[in-house]
């Protein structure tokens, strides 16, 4: 072996010796979530160290369901996340298209307001949103309250504006010369070409809605109207609650997202990374 390849091997070994323990530490909480979700409560609260899964998962799901209607809450979460994702992708890609592809009066102002307020903390709008939705519109504990207010999120507008403005303008001019109506150009030329970006955006938005906690906690606090994270959150800190059940709930919230993450990793990472490469 040459000295160069020896040096490379040495560096490679060092790299893996450092990164492997770090990776294991990082995986540990997720692993323990799975392990806890399969253990009976008296196993979780016992002095021994348990690092491998048991077979109590289904009992824990039953325990959880006894403590709160988690399956129902999952149903609400799925329906809300799907509806929110579809609506948000539609609204923001339309807006992004307009900003990327048309000249119009007030464009500068619209862009300035969206960009200028993007770093304001969400906390600022929390109270007026709550007053408006709960008091003025009397929509607390409805699906509309969960779906519509979060649609203000401008991430998709910026993301899709970027995506559309990177496409060659001649493509749309060609369709225009052929007499294709603007909304059809959007629907049949622009959107199909933006498929990878739409996928990335949809994943990010779905995840955001699925994991959203603070707003659903405030606005939908009645048992029958809670989303899954809120329902699970109400159990944390209670006495006489099944922790195995809570962990089973955490697994049900997390594992589907992990599977999506593994399957669609490329889109996922593109969606997150697009935030930085502006």
């Amino acid at each position: 072996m040459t000295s160069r390849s020896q040096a490379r091997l040495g560096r490679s070994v060092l790299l893996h010796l450092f990164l492997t323990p770090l990776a294991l530490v990082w995986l540990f909480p997720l692993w323990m979530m799975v392990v806890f979700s399969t253990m009976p409560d008296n196993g979780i609260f016992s002095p021994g160290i348990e690092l491998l899964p048991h077979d109590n998962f289904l009992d824990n799901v039953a325990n959880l369901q006894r403590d709160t209607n988690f399956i129902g809450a999952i149903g609400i979460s799925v329906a809300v996340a799907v509806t929110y994702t579809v609506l948000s992708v539609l609204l923001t890609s339309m807006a992004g298209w307009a900003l990327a592809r048309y000249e119009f009066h007030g464009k500068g102002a619209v862009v300035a307001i969206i960009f200028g307020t993007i770093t304001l903390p969400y906390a600022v709008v929390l109270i007026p949103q709550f007053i408006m939705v709960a008091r003025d519109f009397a929509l607390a504990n409805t699906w509309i309250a969960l779906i519509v207010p979060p649609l203000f999120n401008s991430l998709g507008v910026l993301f899709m504006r970027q995506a559309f403005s990177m496409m060659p303008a001649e493509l749309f001019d060609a369709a225009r010369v052929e007499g294709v109506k603007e909304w059809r150009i959007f629907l049949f030329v622009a959107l199909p070409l933006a498929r990878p970006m739409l996928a990335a955006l949809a994943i990010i938005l779905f995840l955001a809605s699925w994991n959203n906690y603070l707003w659903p906690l405030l606005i939908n606090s009645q048992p029958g109207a809670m989303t899954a994270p809120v329902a699970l959150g109400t159990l944390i800190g209670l006495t006489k609650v099944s922790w195995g059940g809570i962990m089973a709930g955490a697994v049900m919230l997390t594992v589907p997202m992990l599977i999506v993450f593994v399957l669609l990793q490329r889109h996922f990472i593109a969606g997150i990374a697009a935030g930085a490469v502006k």
Partner: protein
Amino acid sequence: MRTQNATAYRFLTPYLLVFAVFWIWPIVSSFLISFQATRTVPWRFAPTFNWGRLIGDPAFYNALKNTLLILVIQVPVMISLAIVMAVLLNSPLLKARGLYRFAFFAPVVVGEVAYSAVFRLMFSLDFGIVNKLLESVGLAKIDWFSNVTPAMALIMIAVTWRWAGYNAILILAGLQSIPEDVYEAATLDRVSKLKQFLYITLPLLKPVIVFCAVLSIIGTMQLFTEPFLITERGGPGGGTETLGLLLYRQGFRSLNFGYASAVAYTMAGLAIAITLVQLWLTREPK
């Protein structure tokens, strides 16, 4: 391009409606509410009522102090860790890259509630796996929830675990946009790997790192779920109460909207200041 007002606004209006009603108007409204006494019916305009109280409120200073403390310690640690992760994940020498990526990026998809529950259990005093492991190597167990310092540390550990990979993704994207031939040229110039990192990689990554730092600061500033669920409503005794938690307590437990809005605008002020710093740090050299 031709000017097409009607077409453009047809595409834009649906979003702008939602944006105006649920974002722009609340921003204005929140500002106005912060100048009103909201616990009388009807609300009345009282410019110094909430802001005056805020300035003299020990709970506010406590929450501000805790928030800034977390910011100052957790954000630099996490960003450094994220840089290390990204650089190592980008190494051509790495085998089984997918597994490592999964390990570091997976927390990005985990919801706050789920991981708060896990951390609470992992760090519990007598039965938590962390204390069991500490004892098994001969160390004393730590009471993570009853003492302020370990409780703060726990919050920081949890947030770092959840968000380091997210920042690593951003930094990795930045790394991959640096052209390979820059490094090849440096190698031919006999520049060591370490110096390449210090004098090529880091300067080119600066905008991304600043961006990550700003995102993290603004995110951490609003920290709510972790102290709410892990350390039980900002416990022990308000020791981990953040501005986000104070806002929640005042706004939605005490229904004191005016005071909570003043807290919210304090956060907004901090966010604006930090954004201006970012713009200054990443300004184009003239």
